[in-house]
């Protein structure tokens, strides 16, 4: 749903103020601006599109509940929403720890390309990377997602996580090294299976 065009150019603070005064369209515009990043973050953190959607819904429900207390001067909306989504994802994952995930995001994604074989290969690589990220310890996973995937600055990530900037930087480096190592391990395993040969057979 698109909010009225007059709201598109409004700054976040003004949208919050209008939403606080009961303007539904202002709240819808806030949702429109931030739902995608919240969903992408929760989806990659949990490795599950279903959990991602649940967390997105809950995050905005929490924001709605606390809207009258929210002070834009204290933190930016994005920082607040990332923080809520992070807590909800972590608690959701803790709750679901005993369950085996069936919808982990490793599924092949269709990529428009003239060469179906290379598309397939790229899709496989992305799926592999998603799985490796989903298996990272959460303290490294969240930093990698926020910094490397969402492109946030160290300072922003530090504000979201409530940790010093130095910690963010060290966790990111450590997370990258773990990813590189696991990708190499996965590559070694897949080399045992002759992928190119399989492609020829197909």
């Amino acid at each position, binding site marked *: 749903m698109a909010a009225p065009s007059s709201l598109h150019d409004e700054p976040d603070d003004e949208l919050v103020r209008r939403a606080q005064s009961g303007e*539904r369209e202002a709240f819808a515009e806030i949702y429109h601006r931030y739902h995608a990043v919240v969903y992408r973050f929760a989806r990659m953190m949990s490795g599950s599109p279903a959990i*991602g*959607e649940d967390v997105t819904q809950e995050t905005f429900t929490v924001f*709605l509940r606390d809207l009258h207390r929210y002070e834009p001067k204290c933190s930016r909306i994005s920082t607040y929403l990332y923080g809520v989504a992070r807590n909800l994802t972590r608690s959701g994952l803790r709750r679901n720890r005993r369950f085996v995930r069936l919808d982990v995001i490793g599924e092949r994604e269709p990529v428009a390309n003239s060469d179906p074989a290379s598309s397939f290969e790229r899709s496989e690589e992305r799926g592999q*990377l998603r799985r490796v*990220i989903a298996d990272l310890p959460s303290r490294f996973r969240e930093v990698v997602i926020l910094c490397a995937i*969402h492109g946030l600055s160290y300072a922003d990530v530090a504000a979201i996580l409530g940790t010093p900037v130095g910690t963010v930087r060290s966790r990111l480096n450590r997370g*990258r090294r773990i990813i*590189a190592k696991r990708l190499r391990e996965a590559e070694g395993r897949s080399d045992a299976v002759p992928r190119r040969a399989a492609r020829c057979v197909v």
Partner: protein
Amino acid sequence: MSHEPDALVDEALRALAADDEHVSVSPRVHDAVLREWDQQHGVRKRRRMRHQPSRLVWVVVPAAAALMLAAAGLQRESVRHPMPEAVPRRNAVPIDVPAISSGRGPVLEESSRHAELVSPIAVSTRPPAAVERSFGYVIVPGPLVDPSALHVVRARMSRAALASLGMPIVDPNVDGVVEVEMLVGDDGVAQSIRHATLVGD
């Protein structure tokens, strides 16, 4: 450790980020969030309305207070000056109060019996026969009081107030004051009503 693996990882992460830009949330989430907004704002409005005192309170409470004051005042007045025979007003219109003799249900029967027990009261100049014929609608909240402790009190009240006392009024929402005579016990509680006439302005 060489920087090549890091560069490869960064490149893979960038490619993943580019792919990730295209994922979209189901419209179901959007609908659920805005439904939550509607629900919360609807609840807040309802809660605000619930905290406001009902308008009926502003009508019923003063009407009841006025009725009690009028009853007490008239009682004192009638003790000092015995009430003359009621003369119908020129514009007085009878309203639809059921006849006592119709005997609707046990309460009315009880009230009829009670009315027969009521002796002419010192403060009233009405003949006993008229009293026996007309009184009848009982609003007694407890056991009937001793008939010798009853007093006739005349009062005016709105049709709505009369209806709230349990009198079957045809249209209680119509404006107008009703003049009634009541049997009031020593405790000030009205026991019976009779002779209800609509008084025009």
